[in-house]
């Protein structure tokens, strides 16, 4: 091998070593740990997990959260992108506010919305002052699954729409204006232009945003933890519970493998369905 051909690999080597050591190896370990019992291989950890009263609600909540949050974020982000492209006044100010949550952690977002949805929070105060409620609503009461879901959904939409927004805006800026103008010349109305010109050209960005957001939403846990504790269990929160509070790394690994499986399946689904129209074009 000549010196020239070796250089890129020398530059890449440290990152490959680190990633393999701290990523490949733990991944293998997670699989081994999840299937290891007292005597050789076992699915005991998984059956223990499935019989845990928190697991199925956690699975259900996680999937519900994704199914509700991701479409809202996508639509909201596209709408925000269209607003940016309409070049409103004070665009810089609006843009700053819309990107703010990008740097806010899940935990902080949960605490922010706790101040709103808490029993003695700002929302209940407002309702009482407006005379809409006598004593406020127990938004986060442990029996009110739906209002807890609502609170978590709003907090997640608030926190993570910015990420989708930034990806979509970046994608929209790469589209030449000519296409839209041509459609305008030929008499397309705004809806037709959005449906047949802008959205198809945004498809790659939307795909990236969809995959990234779904995988990140699967990992959501601190929002719910801050808002409701374990009353609204999520999958990753269960990993945390099993590892930290119940001191059982094997079952914790099993939960994390469930998360991994769901992310792989959804990513594969997205890649198939969103790519298809691109080839048909």
């Amino acid at each position, binding site marked *: 091998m000549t010196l020239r051909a070796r250089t890129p690999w020398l530059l890449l080597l440290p990152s490959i070593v680190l990633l393999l050591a701290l990523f490949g190896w733990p991944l293998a370990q997670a699989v081994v740990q999840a299937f290891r019992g007292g005597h050789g291989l076992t699915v005991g950890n998984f059956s223990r997990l499935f019989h845990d009263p928190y697991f199925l609600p956690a699975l259900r909540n996680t999937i519900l959260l994704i199914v509700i949050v991701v479409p809202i974020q996508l639509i909201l982000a596209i709408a925000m992108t269209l607003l940016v492209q309409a070049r*409103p006044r004070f665009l810089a100010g609006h843009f700053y506010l*819309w990107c703010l949550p990008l740097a806010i952690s899940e935990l902080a977002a949960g605490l922010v919305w706790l101040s709103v949805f808490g029993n003695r929070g700002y929302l209940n105060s407002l309702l009482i002052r407006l005379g809409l409620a006598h004593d406020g609503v127990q938004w986060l009461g442990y029996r009110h699954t739906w209002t807890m879901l609502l609170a978590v959904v709003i907090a997640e939409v608030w926190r993570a729409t910015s990420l989708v927004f*930034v990806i979509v805006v970046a994608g929209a800026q790469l589209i030449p204006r000519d296409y839209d103008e041509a459609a305008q010349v030929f008499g397309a109305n705004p809806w037709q232009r959005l449906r047949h010109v802008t959205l198809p050209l945004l498809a790659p960005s939307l795909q990236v945003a969809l995959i990234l957001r779904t995988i990140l939403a699967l990992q959501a846990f601190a929002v719910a933890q801050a808002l409701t504790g374990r009353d609204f269990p999520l999958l990753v929160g269960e990993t945390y519970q099993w590892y930290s509070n119940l001191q059982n790394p094997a079952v914790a690994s099993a939960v994390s493998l469930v998360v991994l499986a769901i992310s792989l399946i959804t990513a594969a689904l997205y890649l198939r369905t969103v790519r298809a129209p691109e080839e048909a074009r």
Partner: protein
Amino acid sequence: MTTGLPPIDRRPLRRRRWRAAGVQLACVAVSLFMAVPIALITLAAFSSRDSIDAYPKTLIPRQFSTETLSSFFHATGTFPALGNSVLVGLYTVFWSLLIGAPAGYALARYAFRGKDAYRLFVLLVRALPIVVLSVPLATMFLHLRLDDTVLAVTLVHTVLALPTTVLITAGIFVAVPADLEEAAQVFGCNRRQAAWQVVVPLALPGLAAAAIFTFVLSWNEILGATLVTLGHRTLPAQVLTALGEASTPYRFAGGFALIVPALVFILVMRRYLLNMWGTTLR
């Protein structure tokens, strides 16, 4: 005397105005949605203990008080955790740039076999849920007696940040014209000197952006930090584990303390956000 001109049709103009007003209204609505919660937690953090407990609360503050924030910062563990967070963030920036930037440079400047495979590998790491790695890493650090150290959290955060650093820095180095590097070589630099003395200075603003981005990633990461530490927690991990027994003022002050760097970060980074996400994610 009447002119032959038809009356002016003002409808298109009016429609345009209505549209602009609608757009502006929608923008304000979205901005309020983003800003009001932040205003509320700021309000809560600067309220006295009594006004946090008051119910129903007033939405217009009566008096400001630093009581809540100061009791948060005087709570056990807050200051060391803050220090750990900053340390871990800085170490993570250092290591991920030291290891990631050369890889990004290689991706940007060389054509070689296996380039696509490497890219795919990096994307794969990025796409996997952190939680899968956190548990085995925590166990591994326990065996290596690295658990509960700043180094352990740094390693976790570095491996999380590395894929992004590689992709972002590749984008930054592509943006530096290769001509300048070749010119430097013509004038007698070798390849390494050309990279150090020409490319790195030109890429510096972008690298700084990547560094701040990495810092925020580390500042916000919770799960990994919580699982691998017990006594040397970062601030978010400290707040998370204290949540169970914490008082309401502690939570609000904690939430506010975690947000403040975000406000500054986005202000500094506004210009780079689009470039970073736009070029690296395709």
